[in-house]
């Protein structure tokens, strides 16, 4: 293999690659990046057996094609530390040489045959969606998913396509976050089965260095999801099991509606939650005409009462919530105002932003609040 490449493009791709390649693993081959030169493109890939990433580097001149494995971290450091604009890479036998102006690195390579095959996108994607829209949907949902639950199905974010509406849903059993958007379905894309995507793949997608308006092609099969954006391909295993029927959880009869400025609400919650500890995790929301009062009390720590102006229609009432759960959602909505609807003190509350974001949260018992 012999080729010359643009250092900056390569360095950016290698940063993403090293984020995927395992740092610590019982299978040493997983610490490697696969470097494949063919035609006029250089492909870099890495996998940790859950998600895999393949980046295509296009600003290259390939003299001799080839395929090898090197330690991802090592190559990444070399490429990011060199000052040159163009670097030359070649291999001989079991060594890879990286040469720049006045520098020469020689690193050992490994046989690519032992590298687990990284799934590619076979055929066309089933649908496409703009990166910024998908990222917003992911941001709205991923925080609500469970971590290390033995109810495996909720350790990920559900992707569901009905018509041209893509719905992402996540829950940890105490709250549910649902975000939807319109996508472009490809002809011959066929049916898209519902898929539960692990959060690792989603956070990788959030970090990929691609333009906000680039289209993301999505293909879901029985055991994996493949996302292609720019020159990159992210493939991930799916979570096994059946996601709970989340539609049944979304209340439809909440008639007491609170409309409040997001920043005010978030600030008030932050202050009120200073008086919350492990034993009393609840904040009491007292709703009355034109006003929202938050009160908290922690044994041996103190009490807090915070009032903020708000538009509220309906009878005065009190309801308790975990303030962390409220703040998690308020941090990601990115709108000036949110609407929050409740029915009574032992029914779930619901936060909405337009039709695209719905957040259902279970109340906590006020006796402990």
């Amino acid at each position, binding site marked *: 293999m012999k080729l010359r490449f643009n250092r900056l493009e390569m360095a950016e791709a290698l940063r993403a690659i090293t984020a995927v390649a395992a*740092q*610590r*693993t*019982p*299978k040493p*081959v*997983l610490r490697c990046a696969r470097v494949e030169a063919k035609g006029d493109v250089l492909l870099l890939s890495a*996998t940790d*057996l*859950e998600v895999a990433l393949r980046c295509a580097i296009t600003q290259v001149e390939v003299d001799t094609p080839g395929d090898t494995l090197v330690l991802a971290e090592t190559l990444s450091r070399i490429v990011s530390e060199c000052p040159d604009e163009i670097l030359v890479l070649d291999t001989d036998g079991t060594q890879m040489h990286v040469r720049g102006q006045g520098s020469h690195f020689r690193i050992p390579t490994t046989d690519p*045959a*032992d*590298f*687990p*095959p990284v*799934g590619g996108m076979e055929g066309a994607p089933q649908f496409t969606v703009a990166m910024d829209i998908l990222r917003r949907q992911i941001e709205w949902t991923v925080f609500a998913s469970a971590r*290390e639950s*033995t109810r*495996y*199905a909720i*350790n990920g974010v559900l992707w569901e396509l009905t018509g041209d509406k893509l719905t992402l849903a996540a829950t940890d059993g105490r709250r549910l976050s649902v975000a939807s958007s319109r996508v472009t379905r490809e002809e011959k894309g066929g049916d898209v089965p519902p898929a539960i995507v*692990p959060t690792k793949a989603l956070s990788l997608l959030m970090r990929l260095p691609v333009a906000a308006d680039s289209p993301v092609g999505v293909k879901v099969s*029985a*055991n*994996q999801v493949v996302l292609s954006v720019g020159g990159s391909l992210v493939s991930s*295993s*799916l*979570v*096994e*099991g059946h996601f709970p029927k989340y539609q049944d959880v979304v209340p439809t009869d909440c008639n007491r509606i609170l409309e409040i400025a997001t920043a005010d609400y978030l600030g008030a919650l932050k202050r009120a939650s200073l008086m919350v500890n492990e034993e009393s995790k609840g904040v009491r929301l007292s709703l009355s005409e034109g006003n929202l009062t938050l009160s908290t009390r922690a044994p041996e720590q103190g009490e807090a009462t915070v009032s903020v102006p708000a538009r509220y229609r309906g009878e005065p009432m009190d309801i308790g919530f975990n303030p962390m759960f409220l703040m998690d959602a308020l941090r990601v909505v990115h709108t000036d105002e949110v609407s929050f609807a409740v029915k009574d003190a032992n029914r779930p509350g619901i936060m909405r932003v337009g039709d695209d974001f719905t957040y259902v949260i279970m109340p906590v018992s006020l006796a402990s609040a």
Partner: protein
Amino acid sequence: MSLGDVRHQEHAQQAIQHALRSGRVPHAYLFHGPDGVGKEMLALGLAEVLLCGAPREVRVPDDKHSPAAAKPVLAGCGACEDCRLVAARTHPDLHLIYRQLNREHPDSQVRQRKALDLGIDVLRHFMIASVGLTPQRGRRKVFIVREADRTSDGAQNALLKTLEEPPGAAVIVLLATALDDLLPTTVSRCQAVRFDALPERFVHARLSAALPHLPPDQVKWYARVADGSAGTALRDVGDDLYGLNGRLIEDLARLDRLRPNQVDARWMEAAKGLAGRFQERDPDVSDSEATRSSLMTILRLASRWYADVLHTAAGDADAVVNVGCGGELRRAAAVGARTAADAIARIVTAERQLHLNANPQLCVETLLNDLARMACRPDTTAAAPR
């Protein structure tokens, strides 16, 4: 490592083949039996056939009925990419879980711990977190847990839910030597498959194939001492137990003329040397554990000597292990069969004491005192006819 390579485990092989052919492979197996008889080999063979794209039938010798006849066994093809990845241990859907995995754990505190048992952090990170994901290559996910009997109670409890109903395509194989060391709740959630000791001639063949330069008399000795475990035999060769045995029986044969406290100092010294070798092989073994297992090895050799004495006294020369010591054996056999049997029983008692964490030094001292007394005592049953 194909299913066809596992020999002399008719019971286990049959259970696996039956499950494979009926298409109903249990989600959790518990392979239990002595060390080094093919549990992991069979587990890997099972993984290969489950992950292989085109399993095929191979014909293997029928060890139970007649080795000349062949019987068909479903096994991985050994040629496809999946089989190749299984052989290289890099198959994305094959997960080997063992206690030393803590060194690869993201938490540095877990990494610095000594892996005395298979801990909850290791199990959570390497097994429970990935068991719920779909297989990368689309078929099954196989988890093989080595030394499952050394799983901490907390880790076993954390695994119960997963063992009971692993999601989707996962198959879990626990490998254990002693069922008693597992929680009953763990055992009841798995299909237990028993593994038996291997025939001595098979261990003999394995040894001479693996170590062609080992002198034939040593091959014979190691094969006989290993009690039907090919793995133990190979490890014993590495530990040079033959040499150690020579020194031990020299002491045992002259026990009636030596001062016991000289002997026990020598034995403790030997145990220390052997323990060092054990720890070299597995640095995650505590000092006391290494001393205990090295003493257990020494006691195993000692009881072999008395078994030989017993055989010689009974006139059964074929069963003797230490064939090179005919003269000493005949002299020692003068004490009679009953005393030799008493000595073996006394060694078993010492083994039990060690197992219950008795002080090793004290244990060896009292044992040698008793053995020396027995060596000087004429056998009452042998004397009776006179």
